[in-house]
């Protein structure tokens, strides 16, 4: 499985993503700079977390208009796989590759903590190593993770099984208290209809070794390897 990690000015989880991909896939990912006009042929493009362009104007807005984005679009249209974690998720919605938008957290505050996620759909490229309804622990760290979509869109993505991760409590219940940012339906991560593009606010790349506090993020990368190898 060949992968590439994109860096925008002020991306800051690019190295973490790179390391996680390397550690788990055993292959060194390519690096893409936001101004590159060509991207090497890869199976997976990862848009990492961070504060691309300072998150000024709107999170992900300026990154979504970077020169290299054209190549990401072409890759996605060919059915290539794309993941966006945190800021990367925001970029994907700004690009229009994923429905909805990510707004300021309900608390208006940045939130960094470990949350519980329910794997709603274990039948995707990104979740096959988990089992359906598995309750996993992954950290979040964001200011704008409040997922919004109009009712029609929400119904559609729910019906299609595009909601893959949802914030739950320790017991697995979807509750207001378990929702760190006010997102609709406690949505933490979604795919597009075709299933080749995924965006999520939590950071699986931060939880891949015991010493980091947990290893539930590994399943995410292992799913990708299973599906793409």
């Amino acid at each position: 499985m060949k992968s590439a990690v994109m860096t925008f000015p002020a991306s800051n989880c690019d190295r973490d993503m790179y390391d996680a991909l390397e550690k788990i896939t055993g292959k060194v990912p390519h690096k893409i700079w936001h101004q590159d006009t060509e991207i090497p042929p890869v199976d997976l493009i990862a848009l990492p977390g961070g504060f691309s362009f300072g998150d000024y104007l709107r999170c992900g807005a300026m990154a979504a208009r970077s020169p290299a984005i054209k190549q990401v679009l072409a890759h996605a249209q060919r059915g290539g796989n794309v993941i966006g974690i945190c800021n990367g998720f925001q970029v994907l919605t700004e690009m229009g590759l994923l429905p909805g938008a990510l707004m300021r957290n309900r608390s208006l505050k940045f939130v960094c903590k470990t949350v519980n996620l329910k794997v709603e759909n274990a039948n995707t490229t990104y979740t096959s190593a988990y089992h359906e309804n598995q309750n996993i622990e992954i950290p979040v760290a964001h200011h704008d993770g409040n997922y919004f979509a109009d009712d029609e869109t929400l119904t559609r993505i729910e019906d299609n099984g595009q909601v893959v991760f949802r914030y739950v409590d320790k017991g697995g219940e979807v509750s207001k208290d378990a929702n760190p940012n006010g997102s609709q339906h406690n949505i933490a991560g979604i795919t597009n209809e075709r299933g080749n593009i995924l965006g999520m606010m939590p950071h699986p790349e931060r939880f891949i070794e015991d010493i980091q506090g947990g290893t539930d993020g590994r399943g995410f990368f292992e799913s990708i390897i299973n599906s793409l190898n």
Partner: protein
Amino acid sequence: MKARVHITLKNGVLDPQGKAIQHALLALGFDGVDDVRQGKYIELDLSENDKDKAHTHVEDMCKKLLSNMVIENYAIDID
């Protein structure tokens, strides 16, 4: 010319910032505030001197960058 752009949330889109302001105003003892909506205000200095051209120009900027059409509306004033 100067362009003033107002970017506001579409009807029906939740507005956490507006809500928080309303809440804080209430806590400060300001009553009679029925609703608060927060948007962005962007001022642009343009070298274009034709009002219509400037308008088209800025409209294009709004569509391509300044606003997110999924959740936001924009309004442009040129003077």
